[in-house]
């Protein structure tokens, strides 16, 4: 009679309780770092934010009183990330289109997809080493060595696989009926792709690409010996061929300085970087959840 009731003291029930609490503890440990990190950045970085931060140049270390601002690094991050996007998005979307629309799943497309996955796994510092060997040390870009342009190229190598993947997967989700309908009324293949399939996959591709850009904005390793760092304002297109600062490299350099003022500037830069990356991530997540809901209705 008793055996029909839940018995707390049975070894299987004790074991179940034990493992359940273990997995709860795992989940708690997993989210703790994010919570602590965000709190720290909000407090330590947020308290440093002043309007001057966005307009001044950073002072070279040594002056412990005033570290200056982040303007060149902020602009540099925008420029370098834009260069990377300008290179990686067309190439990546084009490659994704070929994989999803033209290739028939043969050995070529399998090889390229394999290559995309392998390239995604290449350590980011290797991309920097590659661009250093190819562009910086050969001075191939109009005789300039370290430059924002080279940094953008290194970042684009990291962005490329993610753009191809999101395009490929986004296009694969477009129902074939749409393609047949378009081809059936006499549209050519490229009109079909540009006017029908790409637009209908636009949102998922755009989300993936924006997330890729956000990730690239925080990458440091490919920049430390391609774009290097600069303390000075970026004033024109000519500056693309010179050393260029970025928020990520500024954090790296100034975190290792023994001066308190520089360290504080690094926290402020982290605040800006993390806040913008997290808001892009959260926004795209909310957008994705929202569109999913409307689709279901």
């Amino acid at each position: 009679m008793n055996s029909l009731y839940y018995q707390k003291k049975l070894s299987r029930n004790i074991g179940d309780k034990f493992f359940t609490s273990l997995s709860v503890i795992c989940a708690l440990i997993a989210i703790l770092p994010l919570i602590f990190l965000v709190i720290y950045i909000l407090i330590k970085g947020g308290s440093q934010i002043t309007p001057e931060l966005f307009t001044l140049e950073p002072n070279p270390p040594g002056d412990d009183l005033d570290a200056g601002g982040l303007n060149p690094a902020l602009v540099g991050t925008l420029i370098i990330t834009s260069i990377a996007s300008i290179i990686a998005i067309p190439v990546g979307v084009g490659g994704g289109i070929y994989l999803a629309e033209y290739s028939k799943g043969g050995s070529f497309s399998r090889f390229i997809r394999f290559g995309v996955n392998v390239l995604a796994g290449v350590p980011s510092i290797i991309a920097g080493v590659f661009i250093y060997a190819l562009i910086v040390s050969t001075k191939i870009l109009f005789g300039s060595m370290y430059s924002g342009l080279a940094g953008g190229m290194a970042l684009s190598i990291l962005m490329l696989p993610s753009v191809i993947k999101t395009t490929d997967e986004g296009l694969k989700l477009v129902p074939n009926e749409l393609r047949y309908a378009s081809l059936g009324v006499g549209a050519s293949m490229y009109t079909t792709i540009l006017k029908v399939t790409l637009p209908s996959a636009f949102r998922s591709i755009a989300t993936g690409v924006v997330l890729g850009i956000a990730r690239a904005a925080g990458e440091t390793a490919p920049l430390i010996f391609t774009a290097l760092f600069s303390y000075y304002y970026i004033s024109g297109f000519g500056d693309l061929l010179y050393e260029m600062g970025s928020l990520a490299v500024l954090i790296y350099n100034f975190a290792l300085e023994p001066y308190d003022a520089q360290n504080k500037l690094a926290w402020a830069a982290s605040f800006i970087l993390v806040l913008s990356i997290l808001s892009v991530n959260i926004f795209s997540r909310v957008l994705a959840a929202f569109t999913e809901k409307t689709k279901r209705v």
Partner: protein
Amino acid sequence: MEEKLTLFNNRKRFGIEKNIDILFKNTALVMSCFVAIILLGIILVVFFQSFESFSRYGLKFLVTSEWNPVKDEYGAFTAIYGTLVTSFISLLITIPLGVGTAIFITEDFVPKVFREIIGSFVELLAAIPSVVLGLWAIFVIEPFFRDFFVFLHSFFGWIPLFSTEPTGRNSLLAILILVVMLLPIVTAIARDSLNQVPRKLRNAAYGIGASRWKTIFSVILPAALSGIMAGVLLALGRAMGETMAVTMIIGNSNTFSLSLLSPGYTISSMLANQFGEADGSQVSSLFYAAFVLMILSLIVNIFAQWLVKKFSLKY
């Protein structure tokens, strides 16, 4: 009839449109080839740049730990050892944590809303740039664990892994930061593979009287194992290549030590530290080290992909 035919002729696709169509296709083809070109380019460039060092030191480079630009003697054993040790130990810590979290997210211990929130929290952790984690490690984690490391040394100092006096930055801190970075990867992939296990299997196990965790351990985890393994391998690749956070916290010392409480080195942190100022045969030796790192991560990645392909269609 005649009229209709001419109309049809007029409707024939213009030559120019056909050409655009072909051009478009070929452009897309070329762009997809870029991936292969870049990948091959990276391998070739790094290999050829390391050639000088490779021909001078050969495989001895991998087992000696002298790194002396003045005497022009180079060996990367400390860095290679550091890379392998930090990534393997951090992975050993991450696997139970990540899989445990993934189980928590996929089982129904708490309402779905909370699970989704925890899931997206972990994923957001992956979006934090590693340089920020490094900054956090220097100013928050290192002071926080300082006393703990002293305690570790005084009680477990007889174990070689904890045999040195802790002084500031060390390999163990790098391992802790790597755990934070790997957790989202392992959790996300483990969650996806657990979700892919068919409901039928779970119901069958419940039906013959298995408890929840008996079901998880004997049915669900084995079914999801290949996916989880692939995720673990991807995380291993990431751990070996991870640069910024590790460089900032590992202490960057080329002196070989078994102890995790002493400063260490990894290949990527060596590259980050020395590449800017290197010249002569040091550059070539750094390229050699980069080549070793690349081969290691290529092997791990390709193995992971093979695993996914081989076992993904089981259910």
